[in-house]
C-alpha cells in the first residue's frame, strides 16, 4: 500500500550536506543525502536557513484564510534560502543559495533506479551525524547524491561578501531582498517561474534583450569562483529575475510579501516627499 510520507531537510555541518528525511512507519528514515560543494579542509563553516520575514501569513492553504492587507501570503512553494559563512576567516566570507522545497521533495521521492551504478554505498557512519545505533529503528543506508548531480541544475548561488547576514536579507515566498553593506544597492531576486516568464517576455518585447536598467533576467548559468571557502567554482542554473534599487541607506529595514517590498528607515528628520517608504 502506498504510504503518505512527509519530508523534512536537515542541514548537516558534519558531512557538509543536506539530509532529506521522511517519516515512514512511525520512524525517521533518511531518503537522500545531498552533498554540498566541497570546501577547503579546516574551514569552520556555518550553514543556516534564512527565515521568512514576519510580514505575510505563512501557508494560506493550511490556515484556510487570507492574510491581512497590505501584505499577502507567499506562494505555496516558497523558495528555501540558505547562507554559508566561513567563521574562521577574518573577512567573514559568505554565500547564499536558493532551492525549491518541491525539488528536494522530488529528489527524496525518486526511485532508486535513478541512482546509477555504484552509488549505493554505506556512508552512514561517517557522513550522517546521527548514528543508526542510537535510533530505535535501523534505517537502510541513505543514498548520497554528489553535488554535481543535483546542485547546479536545482540551485542558484549568490556571492554575498558585501551583505550583512542575516540583517541585510529578507525572504518571503519566492522573493528575497539583499542589501549591500557598502554599495547602498538593494537587489530583489524572484524565483517565481510564472512571473519570470512574464518579466522575460515583457523585457524582450521592449528591448530585445535580457535586461534593462534595473531589471535583469538570469536564466543562464553563473559561477562563483573557487576561493577561500570553496575548493572549486560553483556553477548554478536556477532561473530568476532581479530588480535593483540604488541609493538605499545601509540601516534600512525590510518588510515584504509576495507582491510588495517596503524599505523603512527610522530617522529623526522630517522626510522629504517620496523619500520613504520605498516600494519595489
Amino acid at each position: 500500500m502506498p504510504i503518505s510520507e512527509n519530508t523534512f531537510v536537515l542541514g548537516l555541518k558534519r558531512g557538509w550536506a543536506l539530509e532529506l528525511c521522511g517519516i515512514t512507519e512511525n520512524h525517521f528514515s533518511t531518503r537522500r543525502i545531498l552533498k554540498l560543494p566541497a570546501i577547503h579542509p579546516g574551514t569552520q563553516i556555518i550553514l543556516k536557513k534564512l527565515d521568512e520575514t514576519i510580514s505575510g501569513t505563512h501557508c494560506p492553504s493550511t490556515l484556510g484564510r487570507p492574510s491581512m492587507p497590505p501584505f499577502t501570503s507567499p506562494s505555496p512553494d516558497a523558495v528555501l534560502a540558505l547562507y554559508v559563512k566561513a567563521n574562521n576567516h577574518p573577512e567573514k566570507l559568505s554565500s547564499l543559495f536558493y532551492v525549491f522545497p518541491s525539488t528536494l521533495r522530488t529528489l527524496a521521492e525518486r526511485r532508486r533506479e535513478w541512482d546509477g551504478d555504484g552509488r549505493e554505498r554505506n556512508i552512514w557512519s561517517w557522513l550522517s551525524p546521527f548514528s543508526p545505533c542510537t535510533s530505535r529503528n535501523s534505517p537502510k543506508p541513505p543514498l548520497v547524491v554528489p553535488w554535481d548531480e543535483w546542485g547546479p541544475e536545482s540551485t542558484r548561488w549568490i556571492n554575498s561578501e558585501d551583505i550583512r547576514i542575516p540583517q541585510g536579507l529578507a525572504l518571503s515566498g519566492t522573493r528575497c531582498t539583499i542589501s549591500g553593506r557598502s554599495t547602498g544597492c538593494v537587489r530583489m531576486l524572484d524565483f517565481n517561474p510564472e512571473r519570470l516568464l512574464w518579466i522575460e517576455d515583457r523585457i524582450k518585447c521592449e528591448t530585445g534583450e535580457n535586461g534593462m536598467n534595473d531589471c535583469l533576467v538570469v536564466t543562464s548559468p553563473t559561477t562563483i569562483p573557487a576561493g577561500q571557502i570553496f575548493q572549486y567554482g560553483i556553477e548554478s542554473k536556477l532561473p530568476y529575475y532581479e530588480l535593483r534599487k540604488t541609493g538605499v541607506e545601509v540601516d534600512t529595514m525590510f518588510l515584504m510579501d509576495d507582491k510588495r517590498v517596503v524599505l523603512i528607515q527610522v530617522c529623526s528628520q522630517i522626510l522629504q516627499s517620496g523619500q520613504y517608504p520605498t516600494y519595489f
Partner: protein
Amino acid sequence: MGGETEHIKIRNIEIHLMQFTTGTHHKSTSEAVIPLNFPGSYDSDFKTHIAIIGDYLVVLLAHEISSNVHHTLYLVDWVRGYVMDVRITPTSSELFFEILNVSCRKDALAIIHISRS
C-alpha cells in the same frame, strides 16, 4: 527530573499541548503533556525547534553533553501522546531543519509550551 548515568544527567522537558482559544488541554491529544528526555545539561546553547506535520511533531533539541553541543531529534505522535523515534548526534555538530511538506490537521492550531525540569 530523570536519573543519572555516570556524570551525565538525564534531563527532561515537557511539551504541553493546549487549545489556542481556551488555553486548556488540546482536545485531539490523549496526553496533554508529553515528556522528552535527553542527556546533558541546559546552557546558553540550549535551543528547541519544533514543527508540526499532521499527527506528528518533529522536535530538534540542541543541548550540551560534556561541553559539546549535541542535537537530538524526536518524532512525537502528538495525538496518541508518545515519542516514536529518537536520534541523537554522537558528536558535536550543527544543524537546522526545515519541513518540506506540511499536511496540517485542521484542528492542529495549538499552543505548544515547552517547560524544563
